[in-house]
């Protein structure tokens, strides 16, 4: 799975997520990626999230919308992402990762899996990582 979130100069926010799905999946299986609120969500008033991980679990907790709900309640992009992923792990033992932005351009790349390749560009600075803590 791959995904992106962005905020432009006008303050408009968008998300995009695309996937080949799950290794050796059943024919016709559809995961979280094309499901609004699960594979991604964007709202200029709240922020945007693109998700990756165990699709069936992400769908059950509507991960993208859950994270934006936490942001609506006042959490930062990073804290809200961690709360959403922690809930998915504790409630359903599901692992995954997200990239998140808020309307001010604060961003987060967080994951509960062992790996997630991610990168961010802001103010002509490139940030990137693969392992937890990078």
């Amino acid at each position, binding site marked *: 799975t791959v995904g992106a979130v962005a905020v432009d100069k006008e303050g408009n926010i968008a998300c995009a997520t695309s996937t080949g799905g799950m290794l050796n999946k059943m024919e016709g299986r559809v995961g979280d990626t094309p499901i609004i609120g699960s594979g991604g969500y964007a709202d200029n008033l709240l922020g945007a999230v693109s998700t990756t991980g165990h699709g069936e679990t992400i769908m059950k907790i509507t991960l993208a919308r859950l994270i934006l709900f936490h942001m609506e309640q006042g959490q930062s992009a990073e804290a809200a992402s961690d709360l959403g992923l922690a809930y998915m792990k504790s409630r359903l033992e599901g692992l995954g990762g997200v990239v998140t932005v808020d309307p001010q351009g604060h961003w987060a790349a967080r994951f509960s899996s062992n790996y997630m390749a991610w990168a961010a560009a802001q103010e002509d600075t*490139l940030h990137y990582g693969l392992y937890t803590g990078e």
Partner: protein
Amino acid sequence: MLPVVVVHGGAGYIPKERSELSISGVCSAVQAGYTILQGEGSSMDAVVEAVIQMENNPAFNAGCGSVLNIKGEVEMDALVMDGKTLGSGAVSAVRNIANPIQLARLVMDKTSHACLTAEGASQFARSMGIPEVPLESLITEYSRMRWKKNLAPDANPVECQMLG
């Protein structure tokens, strides 16, 4: 408010020998998206361009390089959402197109629907002039190797993590 693009390349298993490919791929994709923002493009233009870059990069599980289903075929899903209008578009179980994210954007821009699937999505792609590509062009040696390996009853449980 500072313009920003953030991308991910998936939470699945990344063997050590492919970690550099993944890192360089996400860095190239985010730079492509950020260039669009610097050039007065919209956030929607930026996220679609960043995802196209990764769909075209065989290091990632999307577009070319997608994992294979149990029959050894490629079925892809994609979603876009515009935070200004709450407009969205998605496709699921699509085959034989290089960039499902472009098709998802067309669903958002050109239809009144939220998601098109399977053969209906293919018909829509044809009506929009999206070229069909051979299945083989989306399959890499690496994805075929993983498919075969995971058909085996003693498949490595690490690789079998159910992470898309």
